[in-house]
């Protein structure tokens, strides 16, 4: 067979056969080796979608970035999107269609499915059920509607373990319609978060962080917002709050009523006393009362520019309270708007219960489960796995041959979103076309293909590309469809598809349910939360996320029973003691982790761990908190018993010490202090020496530098995963993390300040400082770390012999050493993920942040070809690019107009450990807070 060069190259890559449209102008001859292409697509998650630009090297997607035009991304990303590229190449993904453990062809599956569907046709689909996650894909919704029209008795259930049912019900009561609130965080001056981690754990977090952080700089002429947070366990949002009140999740409603009553919200009476159930200490009652009064006054003083947000875990009453407070404060239409939900999910737990009842009653003959993993995530009291057995034919479409697939007759491997044609709506309804970056690695099928197969119509297309295109062709009313389609693919979104805003009508009376005292006020409370890294468990097999230190606890590779020190003392347990958590006769064993700032008498557990069939990475890691979760208490339950078992379990925490020891590492000032005297930041630390016997080195060309704004940083970790993806950073495993050998080039340090009951939380991302007088460079005996003429502290892996002296002498301890061969050199699929512009390091060499030198070189070469200097903003390191808060700014400090140069002239700018005369190129902008004077005086 004769193969020419072009055909050979085509065979080497896995370009999808259909035409996909790159974000930038396509090179004329298609792929140019060494030149990455960017394609716009979108990642569906939690009923929303994050618009992305995906970097593709020779047909391999290697890195995702945010799509600046997409309303949910604004150019930034979260940890899940950053890590999703590893999920694509996960060697544990299921690769074949199986039935009863045997590999079967697609045609055999189609045969079975069609037979079953034919049988259902006669019954009008009475025995047919679909179970999916909440779907916002217009094509899939249309397909499903067509199917249900054909099988009128069939049912479509949507279930997400993190369903926001409480919000939906509360808003239904308050607004009288099925709406979703959209927050205009940027327009709010005073924000009250009622157990709402809206800056991290919300579909719109990336966008909200951008808007929130933009109002945190405290620059003259710019207002700075103020954030109040009530929550049980410190979250990212609580960490950046100006005032955080630690309260049990079940007590938030009482506090919310107190605030609403103080705002004279009609129909809300102040509950009898604000004390929470157990801590009856007068001081704490007084503090809470003062807090409530001050917050109410502050909100009232900011009519139309305040915002009350209720958390997903809160009951409908709190959501209704938040809605009426926003209404009373005149915030509707200004800081909060209501829009149609992007999905059609409705009450998801009720829907799942309906399905389970039908299954139990033997009504279900054919159940098609797409993506959802209900065997793990369904409420424990529904006994899903047991009832699943009563279904005649069970079909599962999933990325992994997991717990649910094991109990199904057929498992069909799903296509990853990076290898799928699909479409998806963002939170506000804006639709994006999901275009594949690569042909399915394992012949995975999309939901569209499965639904088309179910429909079984020979006249309709069955390829996902045709299905999606056809849908949009039908939707398209204007002129040239091809131009419209090209544009949608190129831009990453379909113009003018945002949902309609609903303006709620006049508020009805007594929409907030009457207050009733929780019967079990004194009992220990347990709250269930999605895990900050593995989410609801779907990312459990993603090693980047497993090894990512969780924002507040810095734990990796495990979940834990989080509690306050006082609670732990009362229970007689310490960190890493294994306890048995008993709730309503259900038990799980979990290690204890004490969290400063956690509300007393409460335990927080993260979902998504304790998987048994998730893959090599996740199996047996952590404990399954779903086992305690019931359909009537999806988020908060009381009456938890904690029993000490006497055994211990080691947890791998990346930060063993939490205090700053009086050192000026994270410099903070209140807005008031800073406005009064901007020099306050400089004066908070010792003077930086600048005397030298030698003339300073002159950086005549570029002088790369970075500024990190601690006022903006929320500690969300997106930078850490982005860096890992960009720079081929290996994972090391729990044992090695516990030994202090994690490899992250940028880490987020978290320090506590103040009392352990409710400390101030300070985050500080620490990459390499690229010191001009780098202590690491002088001590290397072989010259493996040197300084470049543009001020980069470089690491030459080939020359490194591994004395580790550089790391010892680094005051910032940002260097990372390959104690073993950490990089996976053998797994084929993981090789495809690697960034070809970055060396994969071997055993025995040191490595560290390079300021993404590959991106600098790319821009420099390009600028040189065009005979100009690199422009400001042309080089964006991976961390800065991913940062939703825009906290990291990189550039050439020789350019007087560069953003980084201006930031370095800012009065908030300071060098970490500058007194050592290292002259770091990475500097920090001090963290400003905006406390309420009324509360600080007390």
């Amino acid at each position, binding site marked *: 067979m004769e193969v020419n060069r072009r055909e050979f190259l085509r065979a080497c890559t896995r370009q999808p056969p259909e035409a996909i449209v790159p974000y930038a102008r396509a090179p004329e001859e298609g792929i140019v080796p060494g030149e990455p292409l960017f394609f716009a697509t979108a990642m569906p998650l939690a009923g929303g979608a994050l618009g992305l630009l995906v970097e593709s090297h020779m047909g391999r997607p290697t890195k995702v970035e945010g799509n600046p035009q997409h309303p949910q991304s604004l150019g930034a990303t979260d940890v899940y999107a950053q890590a999703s590229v590893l999920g694509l190449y996960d060697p544990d993904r299921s690769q074949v269609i199986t039935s009863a453990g045997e590999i079967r062809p697609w045609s055999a599956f189609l045969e079975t499915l069609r037979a079953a569907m034919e049988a259902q046709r006669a019954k009008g689909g009475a025995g047919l059920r679909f179970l999916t996650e909440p779907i916002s894909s217009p094509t899939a919704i249309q397909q499903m509607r067509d199917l249900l029209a054909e099988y009128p008795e069939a049912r479509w259930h949507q279930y997400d373990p993190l369903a926001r049912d409480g919000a939906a019900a509360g808003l239904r009561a308050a607004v009288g319609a099925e709406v979703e609130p959209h927050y205009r965080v940027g327009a709010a001056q005073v924000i009250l978060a009622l157990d709402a981690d809206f800056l991290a754990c919300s579909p719109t977090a990336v966008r909200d962080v951008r808007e929130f952080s933009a109002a945190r700089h405290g620059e003259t002429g710019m207002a700075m917002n103020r954030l109040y947070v009530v929550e049980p366990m410190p979250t990212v949002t609580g960490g950046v709050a100006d005032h955080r009140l630690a309260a049990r999740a079940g007590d938030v409603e009482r506090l919310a009523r107190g605030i609403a009553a103080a705002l004279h919200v009609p129909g809300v009476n102040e509950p009898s006393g604000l004390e929470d159930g157990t801590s009856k200490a007068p001081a704490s009652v007084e503090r809470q009362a003062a807090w409530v009064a001050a917050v109410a006054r502050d909100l009232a003083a900011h009519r139309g520019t305040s915002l009350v947000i209720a958390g997903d875990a809160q009951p409908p009453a709190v959501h209704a309270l938040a809605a009426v407070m926003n209404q009373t404060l005149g915030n509707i239409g200004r800081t909060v708007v209501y829009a149609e939900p992007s999905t059609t999910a409705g009450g998801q737990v009720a829907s799942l219960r309906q399905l389970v009842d039908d299954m139990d009653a033997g009504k279900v003959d054919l159940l098609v489960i797409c993506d959802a993993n209900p065997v793990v995530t369904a409420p424990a009291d529904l006994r899903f796995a047991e009832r699943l057995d009563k279904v005649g034919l069970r079909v599962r479409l999933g990325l992994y041959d997991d717990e649910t697939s094991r109990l199904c007759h057929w498992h069909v491997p799903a296509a990853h979103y990076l290898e799928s044609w699909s479409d998806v709506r963002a939170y506000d309804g804006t639709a994006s076309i999901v275009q594949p970056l690569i042909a399915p690695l394992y012949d995975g099928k999309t939901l569209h293909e499965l639904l088309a197969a179910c429909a079984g119509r020979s006249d309709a297309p069955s390829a996902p590309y045709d299905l999606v295109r056809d849908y949009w062709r039908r939707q398209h009313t204007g002129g040239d469809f091809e131009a419209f389609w090209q544009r949608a693919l190129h831009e990453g979104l379909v113009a003018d598809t945002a949902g309609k805003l609903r303006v709620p009508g006049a508020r009805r009376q007594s929409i907030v349910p009457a207050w009733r005292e929780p019967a079990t006020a004194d009992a220990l409370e347990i709250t269930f939360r999605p895990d900050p890294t593995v989410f609801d468990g779907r990312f459990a097999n993603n090693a980047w996320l497993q090894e990512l230190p969780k924002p507040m606890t810095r734990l990796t590779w495990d979940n834990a029973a989080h509690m306050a020190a006082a609670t732990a003392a009362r229970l007689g347990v310490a960190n890493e003691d294994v306890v048995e958590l008993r709730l309503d006769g259900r038990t799980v064993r979990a290690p204890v982790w004490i969290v400063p700032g956690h509300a007393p008498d409460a335990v927080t557990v993260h979902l998504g761990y304790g998987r048994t069939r998730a893959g090599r990475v996740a199996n047996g890691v952590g404990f399954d908190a779903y086992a305690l979760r019931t359909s009537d208490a999806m988020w908060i339950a009381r009456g938890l018993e904690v029993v000490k078992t006497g055994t211990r379990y080691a947890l791998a925490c990346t930060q063993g010490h939490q205090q*700053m020891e009086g050192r000026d590492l994270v410099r903070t000032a209140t807005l008031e202090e800073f406005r009064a005297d901007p020099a306050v930041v400089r004066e908070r630390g010792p003077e930086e020496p600048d005397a030298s016997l030698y003339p300073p080195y002159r950086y005549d060309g570029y002088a790369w530098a970075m500024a990190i704004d601690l006022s903006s940083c929320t500690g969300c970790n997106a930078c850490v995963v982005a860096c890992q993806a960009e720079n081929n950073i290996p994972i090391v495993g729990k044992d090695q993390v516990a*030994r*202090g050998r994690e490899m992250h080039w940028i880490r987020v340090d978290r320090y506590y300040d103040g009392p352990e009951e409710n400390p101030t939380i300070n985050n500080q991302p620490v990459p390499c400082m690229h010191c001009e007088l780098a*202590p690491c460079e002088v001590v290397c005996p072989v*010259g493996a770390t040197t300084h470049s003429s543009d001020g980069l502290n470089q690491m030459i892996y080939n020359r490194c012999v591994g004395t580790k002296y550089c790391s*010892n002498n680094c005051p910032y*301890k940002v260097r990372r050493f390959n104690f073993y061969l950490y990089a996976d050199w053998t797994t084929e699929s993981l090789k495809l993920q690697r960034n070809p512009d970055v060396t994969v390091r071997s*055993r025995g060499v040191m490595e560290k942040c390079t300021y993404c030198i590959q991106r600098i070189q790319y821009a420099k070469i390009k600028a040189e070809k065009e005979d100009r200097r690199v422009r400001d903003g042309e080089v964006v390191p991976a961390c800065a690019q991913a940062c939703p808060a825009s906290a990291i700014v990189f550039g050439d400090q020789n350019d007087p107009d560069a953003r980084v140069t201006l930031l370095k002239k800012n009065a908030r700018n300071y060098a970490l450990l500058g007194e050592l005369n290292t002259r770091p190129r990475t500097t920090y902008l001090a963290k400003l807070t905006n406390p309420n004077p009324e509360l600080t005086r007390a």
Partner: protein
Amino acid sequence: MSLPVIEARRDRRPPIIAPGHTFETVTDRISRVVLRRGTPRGWIVGFALSFSLMMVLFYATAVLLFRGIGVWGINIPVAWGFDIVNFVWWIGIGHAGTLISAILLLLKQEWRTSINRFAEAMTLFAVACAGLYPVLHLGRPWLAYWLFPYPNTMSMWPQFRSPLIWDVFAVSTYLTVSLLFWFVGLIPDFATLRDRSASRVGRATYGMLAMGWRGSAQHWHRYETAYLLLAGLATPLVVSVHTIVSFDFAVSVIPGWHATILPPYFVAGAIYSGFAMVMTLAIPIRKFYGLEDFITMRHLDNMARVMLATGLIVAYGYMMETFMAWYGGNPYESFMVLNRFSGPYWPQYWLLITCNVILPQVLWFKRLRTSIPALFGVSLIVNLGMWLERYIIIVVSLHRDFLPSSWGMYAGTIYDWSMLFGSMGLFLTLLFLFIRYLPMISIFEMRTLVPGAHVEEEAP
């Protein structure tokens, strides 16, 4: 005027060599250890144990090379652990030999003659053990030669500002000079063994090593000149090697390392531990081989005095470190000292103070200075204390430096311990071979100490 007083005092001290010995008995007693037929059972047992321990070292090294230095307990922030602790400890031990041979020779301290050969051998073996670690502690040990300036196609030279490069030169120079000094000192004795050996192999081997020594006046003249020159060359090395080793730490920015007092206090510590090790080895050997006549109480007493003096210098170093941490007003320095006192490694710190400062004070008492068990005990304690000192300096300074977020803990793994005890196996194996095949006391120099050698000198 003062001369007779000194003479008188010297006379009152016990003799360097027990009375009654002649040239013949000295030669016979020492060479018999080497030339006797058959090997003593005790030697075989001791050698077997040492050899087994050395095999532990080889096994641990093989694992290390095969799997990577992750088998050790090191991490970030404590990237140096047992490896460098052991390196500095062995190098320190290696200091006594040259001090005894060179400096005491130039100071005309005749008592050194009984122990110098043996101390020099100990030095060489200790440096050999020490030399393992800088190579093995590398992430890629097979590239250790990159630390030497050699012409290569990469046109790469070492980075001469790094103290590790200074180490390479200091230690390799020290090893070379010590080896030469030892070998030159052995030449007349090789000739003696050649002449007295009954076996052909012995005659041939020792003959070759004796390099044609015939004992002519010209030979002796040249020998004395060479020996003195080498002594002069070796003398600065005693001070320089550990000074440069201390630069590994003093040049850095880490609190607890970054201190100008490190060089003198490292040198004193090295001599301290070196003498302790000579004592630890000399006491059992003189007993086992019946050499009490040659290594007398006077030697042990003198060594104890040197230990006492250097121990006090070391104690002064600890005091000054603490004082400067307070006086310097640097918050990181003062934290470092407090962390030593009361941080997680406080037991190790206070054990170090007990071993190096408190317990050796018993050497002030003559009764204990002349008690063999007491001396043996103190010498072991000082060996332990000096190892702990390096552990405190290296590990405890690193584990909590500037940013509390990066603080960590360190503990040696089974491979760390294997390599520590294994290196002792290597050391003892070499020592056993030395004792068996070479004269452990300088025969010809001892002959100059017998009364017969001084007859002419004392006659008016």
